[in-house]
């Protein structure tokens, strides 16, 4: 039986409102709302908008912690509204504000442009330098489970921007690349198929790069996907130092190309059994 049959509890929502067309500064508005067990902050906001405040704005999409759109500052912590249950917060008053360390577009909508720009700056894709192989692939790249494990957790990033909102360094130094971009820089440089360290160095080996991290660890605490960006930054530092003294990871990518004929053979070998129905 669903917990939604439980008696609803009345909760006060303190929501920070801001309309750039009419307001000169943000202000707080309070709404009282019945909340049942299992109800998320996002559901509560939808109900609030439907029943009390139709002009309230926020950004959301998937409702299942995948798209990373609904990051908000809930009870003074950056969290995904769709993953945060109101009654689990344990307070009778729930404060909801837009994510800090970003400009405020309207109400609970942060301007995530800096997050995207920093992410793009570190070239978040596999860079392969053999143009002949790119133009005329002779096979597929092999990657062992161990090689994948080296960066696996960092692939879970959904670019919600909670880590940047939690980061005390971003608060004082807006030019700091931040935990998201730096962890992704590590994710790609640690990938055995990537040869992009030299191209990325220009973007990451700068004053506002990994060495600005104060290692508060707030990013790792805030991440809703269990990624540990603070650890990623430390790994990136190690990779950069080793690279700077000539002990960087040597990659022999061509040796790891699996010829297409072998790929076909492997597919046949590991093909599922024929259907019986």
């Amino acid at each position, binding site marked *: 039986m669903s917990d939604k049959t439980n008696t609803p509890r009345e909760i006060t929502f303190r929501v920070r409102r801001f309309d750039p067309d009419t307001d000169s500064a943000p202000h707080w508005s309070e709404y009282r709302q019945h909340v049942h067990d299992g109800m998320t902050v996002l559901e509560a906001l939808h109900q609030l908008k439907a029943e009390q405040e139709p002009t309230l704005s926020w950004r959301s999409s998937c409702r299942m912690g995948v798209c990373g759109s609904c990051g908000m500052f809930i009870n003074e912590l950056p969290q995904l509204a769709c993953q945060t249950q109101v009654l689990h917060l344990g307070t009778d008053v729930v404060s909801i504000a837009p994510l800090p360390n970003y400009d405020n577009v309207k109400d609970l909508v942060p301007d995530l442009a800096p997050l995207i720009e920093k992410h793009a700056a570190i070239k978040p894709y596999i860079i392969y330098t053999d143009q002949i192989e790119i133009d005329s692939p002779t096979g597929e790249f092999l990657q062992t489970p161990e090689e994948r494990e080296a960066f696996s957790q960092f692939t879970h990033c959904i670019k919600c921007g909670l880590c940047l909102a939690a980061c005390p360094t971003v608060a004082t130094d*807006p030019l700091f690349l931040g935990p998201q971009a730096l962890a992704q820089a590590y994710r790609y440089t640690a990938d055995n198929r990537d040869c992009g360290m030299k191209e990325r160095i220009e973007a990451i080996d700068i*004053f506002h790069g990994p*060495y600005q991290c104060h290692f508060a660890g707030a990013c790792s605490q805030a991440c809703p996907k269990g990624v540990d960006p603070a650890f990623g930054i430390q790994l990136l530092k190690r990779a950069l*130092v080793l690279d700077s003294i000539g002990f960087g990871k040597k990659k022999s990518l061509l040796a790891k190309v699996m010829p297409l004929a072998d790929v076909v053979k492997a597919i046949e070998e590991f093909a599922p059994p024929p259907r019986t129905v």
Partner: protein
Amino acid sequence: MRETRLWSVHLLVIPIIVVLLGAHFAVMHYAPVFYGVSIEEARNFETMIERGRSVAQLVLYILLLAAALYHGLYGLRGILRELTLTPGLGKIVDTSIILLGLFIFALGAYVTWWTFSFKIGG
């Protein structure tokens, strides 16, 4: 220069500072323990000049000056540049720190060299 190199050097000088500062403390502050002379005797003008004329002292203090200056000014640059919001101001901070460092190093090195080449009574 790549930030990695600047950062690595700032870490590498830490053990150098620890060793040289230890030597400085042993000579200047713990002379009764290590050399069996009183603090007053270790710090009087003649003793200091005498000590300053040794090559070991010259090398120790110039190295300590360089290492401590680099480490300290790298930290100061970090604090200042974290407050700096434009790349242009960042470059000004970098240049000022380099000039300040060179000035202090030149001053310190001159004093150390002056002591090294000082002739009592001459």
